[in-house]
């Protein structure tokens, strides 16, 4: 018989669980409310979700840095706090986008909001642990919710997107599991801090390198899928296109932040062990990703798809920063996403508000460039705002993404990867073309059809979100400093 185990409540450090529990409790509340009264309007659920997220945000802010909890499964370090804050923040911007002036299928389900909160809880678990099991389970919770959210948009394209995403996700999950198995076989542990210790002692055993490299590759395949690195990115454009515009914008930011945190933990570990090979593999993948998706974005006819490719390119950009494995590099990841989040969500929101079921400009696409032709004449303010987002994405100072971009490039230069900085620069130049293309359509061309407006789907909450995104994009220079110092502090405090 085993001895009973005595565990003190303090040693569990339950507070580390609070944020996720809040999200889960929120989700359950929504489900219960629905059970009580099923005729309630989406606005109620939107606001409830925002409130839950608000509390969640507060509880994350209250966490202390570098704590472990619950038999060391939970890990609350700097990056887990900042990533949770960003995940919740991004979600708070995203969810009010449900308040459109038109009715959409997914928002008529209260479950949509419950799943959304579950997904956030999943992401939070994913980033707040260094245990591969919890990472895996968190990841799957979030992913399964996300697949459903995509499918709920309820169009042929969304099903197609969901299926593609799901199937490839399942394959990636298998790779993740296999990778974990190899890691486990190598070290007898699946907790990364322990893995790092053991692996360091086994690095020089003969014949073992193949397993070490192999494990890194298997895990890399899984996360490259999540982060949409070449050649595992193929799902991304289709899924972004099939999903509703705000969800696509959301997907290009929040799940990636979570995946980046785990990647920092896993691949940072490998690189820290002195495995330059892993660093180079990631670097090369990152470079190919940013270049290839850039040139593919060049030829797109649809703004949403173009933004999808551009999001892939941005992810490649950041992945390169990850490979640097320096504090600056890691800071730049979060800084970049913090800045990119507003701009990209803003851009996708602009597409969202231009959504119209019947007034289509193109059979195949929802948002072809032609739709925006001459927008400056039809809706000048909208055109200017969209142009600001595009310029920001292109990396024109002083708009937000520029600051992220130079920070990434500076990090590359600081680590001696000047060629990488140059490649990033040239890629930005190529990228400028397709952002410019939209600006050209909006400002320099004549409207294609006689339309008196393009933004059919606009409502006050959406305007507020766009206003916020615009403000964050334009005034970035004023908050970059506190942001950098906070991020840098948090990241260096957690030792990355």
């Amino acid at each position: 018989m085993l001895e009973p185990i005595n565990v003190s409540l303090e040693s569990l450090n339950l507070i580390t669980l609070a944020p996720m529990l809040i999200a889960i409790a929120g989700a359950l509340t929504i489900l219960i409310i629905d059970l009580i009264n099923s005729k309630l309007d989406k606005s109620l659920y939107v606001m409830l979700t925002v409130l839950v997220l608000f509390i969640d945000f507060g509880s994350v802010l209250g966490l202390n840095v570098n704590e472990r909890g619950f038999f060391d499964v939970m890990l609350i370090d700097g990056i887990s706090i900042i990533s949770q804050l960003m995940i919740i923040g991004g979600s708070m911007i995203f969810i009010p986008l449900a308040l459109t002036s038109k009715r959409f299928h997914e928002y008529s389900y209260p479950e949509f909001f419950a799943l959304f909160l579950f997904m956030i809880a999943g992401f939070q678990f994913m980033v707040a642990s260094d245990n591969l099991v919890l990472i895996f389970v968190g990841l799957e919770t979030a992913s399964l919710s996300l697949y459903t959210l995509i499918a709920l948009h309820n169009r042929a394209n969304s099903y197609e997107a969901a299926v593609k995403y799901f199937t490839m996700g399942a394959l990636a999950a298998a790779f993740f599991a296999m990778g974990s198995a190899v890691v486990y076989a190598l070290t007898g542990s699946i907790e990364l801090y322990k893995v790092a210790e053991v692996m360091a002692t086994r690095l020089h055993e003969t014949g073992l390198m193949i397993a070490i490299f192999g494990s890194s590759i298997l895990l890399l395949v899984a996360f490259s899928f999540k982060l949409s690195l070449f050649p595992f990115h193929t799902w991304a454009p289709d899924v972004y296109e099939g999903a509703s515009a705000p969800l696509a914008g959301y997907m290009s930011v929040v799940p990636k932040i979570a995946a980046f945190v785990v990647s920092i933990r896993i691949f940072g570990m490998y690189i820290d062990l002195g495995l330059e090979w892993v660093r180079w593999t990631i670097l090369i993948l990152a470079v190919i990703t940013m270049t290839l998706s850039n040139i593919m974005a060049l030829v797109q006819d649809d703004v949403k798809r173009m933004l999808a490719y551009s999001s892939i390119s941005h992810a490649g950009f950041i992945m390169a920063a990850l490979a640097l494995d320096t504090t600056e590099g890691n800071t730049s990841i979060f800084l970049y996403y913090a800045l990119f989040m507003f701009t990209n969500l803003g851009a996708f929101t602009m597409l969202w508000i231009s959504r119209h079921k019947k007034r289509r400009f193109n059979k195949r696409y929802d948002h072809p460039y032609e739709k925006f032709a001459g927008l400056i004449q039809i809706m000048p303010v909208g055109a200017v705002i969209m142009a600001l987002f595009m310029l920001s994405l292109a990396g024109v100072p002083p708009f937000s993404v520029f600051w992220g971009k130079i920070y990434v490039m500076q990090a590359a230069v600081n680590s001696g990867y000047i060629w990488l900085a140059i490649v990033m620069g040239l890629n930005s130049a190529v990228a400028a073309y397709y952002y410019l293309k939209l600006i050209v359509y909006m400002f320099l061309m004549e409207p294609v059809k006689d339309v008196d407006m393009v933004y059919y789907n606009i409502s006050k909450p959406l305007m507020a979100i766009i206003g916020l995104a615009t403000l964050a994009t334009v005034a970035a220079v004023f908050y970059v400093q506190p942001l950098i110092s906070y991020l840098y502090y948090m990241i260096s405090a957690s030792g990355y």
Partner: protein
Amino acid sequence: MFENFIASIMTIEGAAFYVFSILTIGLFSITVMSKNVLYAMTSLAAAMVLISGFFFILGADFLGVVQLVVYVGAIMALYSFAMMFFDATKDIKEKTTSNSLVFLLGGLSALVLVLMFAAPIYSENIQALYPMHEGVGNAQDVGMVLFTKYLIPFEVAAVMLLVAMIAGIILAGKKMDESLTEDMSADDEILIIKDEK
């Protein structure tokens, strides 16, 4: 080498291993290659039963049971319902991707993985973090770890299953049949402001 093989096959464990290995590999191959969904599914179920056999050999009794219950019981049941729903009992026609590429990839991946696992991956020096205890049943051991160290993942897994359930219900639900966002016949997606009010 060959003597080793003979020696290993002579033990019960060894014999069982080889039998199970050959059977699972064969059955899974059928799953993958068969044109008939029914055959594929049946062979999948059978192979899974055999895999639980592996678990029993390896002393993971609890896992073996779970494998039987969840996989063979739940998952296979789901699949069979799905199969009935999709009416997929007939042979299916598939345009297969070029077989040479597929087998090349499969072969290469097998080769590399085998090479990886053939490496001296096992180390005597590794201390078990959560050792199995002599004379304690596997289920009890597992329970002890599952409800201390792995309580959180366990709970998250519960949430995940809840998510899966909700997702399954709403996706398969009747409400999904009508698409507001696409069907032109459906009620216009515009809910002009007056409705909102």
